């Protein structure tokens, strides 16, 4: 292995690591706020990428039907609940988020000449289809169990993952797809040839991380989420709705997931089931960060990316063995350095 190869591998590892880092951040966020280990995170990656593929092909994506259907179910349940407790003031919000918004998205998808739109608009449309699914999934699957144990929530996650993968196969078929690159530019960095998409991935990841940082540090909603993460009961006593916090964190997670998918779609082929392993590696990164620290989670994800890249060079058949086995000492170190508190389950 010469320096050139090492540099290329390093570049590859960093790009993959950046994606894992984004997913790791979303996983940390969701876990901290709702105690849900969000295994279906990976499905949002695939949904985001493949929805964009459909839009670019000028077709109405199958995920739209999921959005409309889920919106309908959520609206039905919430309206029934609101009427039962006589809280009519909530009705406009329920109808707006679950019926009007998906309806508007559907209108746009049917009304516009999708294939001819500028790419940025196509991306926005794809996100508009996928991101609202996040809070809807939270409402339908997790909210009734918000106080259950981490284990039960985890099993719910697995069930949601099964359902979403099955739907993905139904919507998008078994074959994969790619999207055109955001830019065809490439740069010469010393001996290293860096293409434009790579920079896009790194830049967008960095920008998202900064944006999240600002969101949590500067905005009221961000602070509310942090408060919920630190102490659920306390936050509720302060008037922060844990339901709102849950939905908000799921919306963010869906946004990050779908956007990651859109970022990687030009550099790799995305399949309906791509998400699981990608999400799992993001999860490994998140765990290295102890599921609480954002910078550490990002660093952990980068480590996973690099490890993967170099082991695929040295022993490709055993790549997963190496990546997942080397994680164990890291876990051990984490668990020895973090102080042991008895869990209350």
């Amino acid at each position, binding site marked *: *292995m010469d320096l050139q*190869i090492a540099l*290329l*591998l390093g570049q*590859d590892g960093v*790009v*993959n690591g950046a*994606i894992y880092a984004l997913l790791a951040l979303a996983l940390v966020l969701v876990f901290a706020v709702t105690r849900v280990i969000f295994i279906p995170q990976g499905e949002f990656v695939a949904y985001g990428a493949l929805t964009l593929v459909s839009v670019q092909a000028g077709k109405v994506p199958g995920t739209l039907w999921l959005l409309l259907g889920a919106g309908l179910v959520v609206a039905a349940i919430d309206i029934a609940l609101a009427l039962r407790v006589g809280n009519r003031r909530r009705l406009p919000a329920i109808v707006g988020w679950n019926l009007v918004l998906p309806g508007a998205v559907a209108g746009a998808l049917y009304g516009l000449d999708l294939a001819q739109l500028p790419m940025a608009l196509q991306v926005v449309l794809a996100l508009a289809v996928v991101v609202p699914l996040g809070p809807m999934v939270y409402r339908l699957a997790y909210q009734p169990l918000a106080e259950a144990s981490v284990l039960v929530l985890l099993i719910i996650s697995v069930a949601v993952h099964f359902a979403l993968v*099955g739907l993905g*196969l139904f919507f998008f*078929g*078994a*074959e*994969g*797809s*790619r999207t055109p690159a955001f830019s065809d530019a490439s740069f010469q960095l010393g001996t290293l040839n860096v*293409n434009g998409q790579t920079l896009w991935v790194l830049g967008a990841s960095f920008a998202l991380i900064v944006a999240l940082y600002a969101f949590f540090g500067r905005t009221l909603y961000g602070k509310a989420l942090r408060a919920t993460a630190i102490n659920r009961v306390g936050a509720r006593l302060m008037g922060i709705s844990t339901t709102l916090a849950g939905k908000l964190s799921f919306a963010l997670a869906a946004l990050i997931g779908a956007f990651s998918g859109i970022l*990687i779609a030009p*550099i*790799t*082929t995305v*399949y309906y*089931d*791509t998400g*699981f*392993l*990608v999400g799992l590696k993001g999860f490994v990164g998140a765990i290295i960060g102890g599921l609480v620290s954002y910078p550490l989670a990002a660093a952990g994800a980068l480590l996973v990316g690099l490890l*993967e*890249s*170099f*082991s*695929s*060079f*040295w022993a*490709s*058949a055993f*790549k*997963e063995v190496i990546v997942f086995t080397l994680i164990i000492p890291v876990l051990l170190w984490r668990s020895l350095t973090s102080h042991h508190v008895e869990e209350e389950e």
Partner: protein
Amino acid sequence: MKLKSLLAALFSIAAVSAAQADINVGVVLSATGPAASLGIPEKNTFALMPTTVAGQKINYIVLDDASDTTTAVKNTRKLISEDKVDVIIGSTITPNSLAMIDVVAEAETPMISMAASARIVDPMDAKRAWVFKTPQNDVQMSTAIVEHMTNGNVKTVGFIGFSDAYGEGWWQEFSKIAELRKIKVVASERYNRTDTSVTGQVLKLMSANPDAILIAGSGTPAALPQKTLKEKGYKGKIYQTHGVANNDFLRVGGKDVEGTLLPAGPVLVAAQLPDSNPIKKVALDYISKYEAAYGAGSVSTFGAHAWDAGLLLQNAIPAALKKAQPGTKEFRKALRDALEGTKDVIGAHGVFTMSPMDHLGLDQRARVMVRIENGKWVLQK
């Protein structure tokens, strides 16, 4: 007690439906899971098959095994004991087919596999006597590639394949034949179907500097190594396997897969075959039926393996009907014998002539070399 009477009732319904003496064909395929891109066209193909042969009604009972061996075996047992099938077709992938052999042999039910490995019908023994298959063996396809390589003066070759039974089967056969023909395999790498990056493997391949590289993957995932090779500036020849022979591969691969060489069943380039080739008519017939049902350009060579299995059956059923009634042990035995006696049956992938020692029965006509030119499959003469 209620449950038991209910089960007994179900049982008797199953028995009654079998007594009508339709021919029941059980199908096990991988319509979900990692092998879904192979299994789905196969599933679609069964919907096109004739529902009567020689005046007998045929029922196709299609079950999905999710690319999992346990489920494949469970489904096979179910088809045999619940649906009383006369023959099993499946499964899509090699491990599942291997796992099903014991079950069909125990129940003395013939089985036609749609998976590639020669291990399914070789070495022939008492159990495999019940097992047939339609896809070309990896050996046949490997030989075609190696021949093409020797003719093209390729001395060194790099290999990158799926980290599953498909890649493994190719590696075993290809490395053996390459060594025999004095082609040196300088690197062998693996990757996963859903990997997002194969940069590491590609760099390893390129640092060995081979004259040609063989990518052993199926469907669109096989495009990723090739795109990465192009991106990193690899200039040598690139070979793919017949696993990529569907239009999705061309769609995803785009201009990066131009000039790719691969062996394939003749069905892939049916229109370009000379009119004298008997396969042409059968293959075109299949293609037109499939595309009429599922849209232009939707056909894949995997569906044609299922079609060929159907053709073998249609040829064997009349002979078996002369000996026994469907639904009986004797009929299954007669069907097995008739399948083994298959002679010059023309399928979409080749001409089948079976024998007690050869339960595949394809010859050199079952493969052609194909090159991708201007986003089309072009037959190499």
